[in-house]
């Protein structure tokens, strides 16, 4: 067996197999069929529960409106996610350099995490005049904590044997950080990314809800609010559908990124046959 074949056999990670998306898809199709049948069969009015077909029609008819809203929400999500990642990693690096700093600041990171964003959002929206910036700040606050917590844990989760080896080789503090702590932290960091990407979307939507009532938002949450006021329930479902799809796609993107970055060296990326 040549080395390449051996490598492939020893590391069967990589792209999801057909079964990974075929089965969930089959479940989705089945649920949609049942839903459609129930709505049609019991003649449920669309302002209570619209049928999937109606929602699809609205999705096409209001495409311009809804997809612009989706892009706006995704833009806020992306900015918040990037900000949370950069900030979270910086904070984690600071924590790891000194236990005293971590002890002094960690409670505030927790405070940030446990305070509901809906409670702070109105304040931030009053303070920050620029609407997008206000939304991004809210979403960042929601997405920040998992990055801090996971990256800090990862930077500390170093194999003690390797640590002893690095010490024996008289590695500098910088070498220790860059060559040992950072690679060791990657699996934890990507776990944090996966959680935070979802939270950034939730944060963006929640912030839009709070800000949207002030008439500044044009994101999906604003569309949901407006549809609610107008009893346009099919459009509400369409907007909901887009948020859910965006969330799933974000998750899949993060999973792919993790696979690519850990490229088969980490246990979490090994599949048990």
């Amino acid at each position, binding site marked *: 067996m040549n080395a390449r074949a051996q490598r492939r056999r020893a590391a069967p990670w990589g792209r999801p197999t057909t079964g990974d998306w075929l089965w969930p898809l089959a479940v989705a199709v089945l649920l949609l069929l049942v839903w459609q049948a129930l709505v049609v069969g019991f003649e449920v009015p669309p302002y209570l529960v619209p049928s999937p077909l109606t929602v699809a029609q609205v999705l096409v008819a209001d495409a311009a409106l809804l997809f612009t809203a989706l892009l706006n929400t995704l833009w806020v999500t992306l900015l918040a996610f990037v900000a949370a990642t950069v900030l979270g990693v910086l904070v984690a690096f600071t924590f790891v350099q000194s236990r005293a700093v971590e002890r002094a600041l960690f409670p505030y990171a927790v405070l940030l995490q446990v305070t509901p964003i809906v409670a702070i959002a109105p304040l931030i929206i009053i303070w920050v005049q620029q609407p997008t910036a206000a939304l991004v700040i809210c979403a960042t606050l929601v997405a920040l904590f998992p990055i801090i917590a996971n990256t800090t844990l990862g930077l500390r989760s170093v194999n003690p044997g390797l640590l*002893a080896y690095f010490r024996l*080789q008289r590695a500098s503090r910088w070498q220790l950080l860059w060559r040992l702590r950072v690679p060791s932290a990657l699996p934890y960091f990507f776990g944090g990314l996966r959680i935070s990407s979802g939270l950034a979307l939730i944060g963006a939507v929640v912030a839009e809800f709070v800000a949207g009532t002030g008439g500044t938002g044009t994101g999906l949450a604003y569309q949901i609010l407006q549809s609610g006021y107008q009893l346009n329930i099919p459009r509400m479902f369409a907007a909901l559908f887009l948020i859910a799809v965006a969330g799933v796609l974000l998750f899949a993107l993060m999973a792919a990124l993790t696979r690519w970055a850990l490229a088969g060296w980490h246990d979490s990326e090994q599949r048990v046959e």
Partner: protein
Amino acid sequence: MIDALSGALIDAAIDAVTSGAPPAVHLQGAGKTFANGQQALQALDLSVAPGEFVTLLGPSGCGKSTLLRLVAGLLPPSAGRVWLDGMPVAQARHLAYVFQEPTLMPWARVQANVRLPLDLAGVARAEADARVEQALGLVGLAACAQQLPRELSGGMQMRVSIARALVTRPRLLLMDEPFGALDEITRNRLDAELQALWLTHQAGRAPLTVMFVTHSIHEAVFLSQRVLVMAARPGRVVDELRIDEPFPRSAAWRVSPAFGALASRLQDSLLQASEGEPA
């Protein structure tokens, strides 16, 4: 002819220097008592000659790993002093340490793993790569340079770990039960390979000194020129046995009566040392 003459002169000069050379490892009353009062290693005088292969043999808890860590400078002695090549251990630059686990970086390919000590020391990339190739050749893993550790067997991972130690061209190699986690067949093979490696280094001008920790009597007899038998509670050296069998030692010697006699001699002294102790 001139070359031959100057060669002989250089050899003579080197002999003159090495005969008066300080011991590779020298312990003066060195011992270790931990902060909780537990005496891990009684004060000990020990001298290891340059190029010597010395094995520390004993049950777990006898302080053999502690002794090795004192020599490596991984632990400061609580009493006495440790000298390597006549210098305090803190200044020693030419030692390499092989742990019981391969302790490889799982994210790095074999080549990068072996190059690590050179990277940490700031050796230029081209020279480092050449030395890595040579070291991997020495342990028979030249073809595996681009593989990840998890794609290798336990024995191969241990070979990578040894290549990583050899790549720094150490004069002193400290090995802490390096093959303890391997099956017996693989262990025997790696013992033979280690012996061959050590022998090739004896021909050079800077012989390789090895201090080897094991709890296997057979491994100790097969590899060593000298075996130090250790006992626990408190950790101490209780016996010393020279093994004068010439090198290279064959697989056939492993099953000879002479080998058996040496092994039973070591076993007696281990048993005697642990008499009256709970197992």
